[in-house]
């Protein structure tokens, strides 16, 4: 089981999924239209490290975060 967190303005509670890698997470999240609309603009972190490839293997308890467009300052 991995945890998917939605940061900032994405008003969603965390999801818990069975997924062996990020591609499977992507497939799962694309099924929900309310989440899907954010995906093209969101960066992705695994255990608080931004990742830039879908070829990331996941293990039990991993935490995936979705980061929508930012504007600090």
């Amino acid at each position, binding site marked *: 089981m991995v945890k998917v967190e939605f*940061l*900032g*303005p994405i008003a969603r509670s965390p999801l818990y999924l069975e997924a062996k890698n*990020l591609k499977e*997470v*992507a*497939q799962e*999240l*694309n099924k929900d239209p309310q989440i*899907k609309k954010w*995906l*093209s*603009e*969101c*960066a*992705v*972190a695994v255990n*608080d*490290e*931004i*990742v*830039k*490839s*879908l070829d990331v293997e996941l293990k039990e308890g991993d935490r995936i*975060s*979705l*980061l*929508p*467009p*930012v*504007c*600090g*300052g």
Partner: protein
Amino acid sequence: MVELYPGELEVEKIFNRWLKWGEDKNYGAYITFVGIVRAEDGIEALSFDVYEPILKKWFKEWEDRAKKERCVIKMAHSKGNVPIHTSSYVAAVFCPHRKKALELIEKFVEDFKANAPIWKYDVKNGERIYAKERSQPIEGSGLLALDKTSQ
């Protein structure tokens, strides 16, 4: 270290504390950037969400980068509501010489805008409205969008 405070920043105190910190360290240039909330579009305040774990990692990379140039970077940012005409952000660099300092503050502030995990909301009539049109997708965004052509 990233300093985070609820509400508006006490800019004078932060500036003076950092100035004193640098006093005997033989830096030749100390630049500060203060971001002030502008009165625009009838907002009463801005509001900020900060995701600390990734902000700290992002900032650590900048600290390391600055250190290679014998410089130091500091920053303070608000969480929650910040009224108009008060400050939500202070960034600073200390460098031996001016050229590096001017270069570093610009690169740091621009990368901060583009990649620091902070989300901004306009506050109107007490309501928080995500400032989407002023926000930038973090580098590498869109990874999980499988159906990219339709986006």
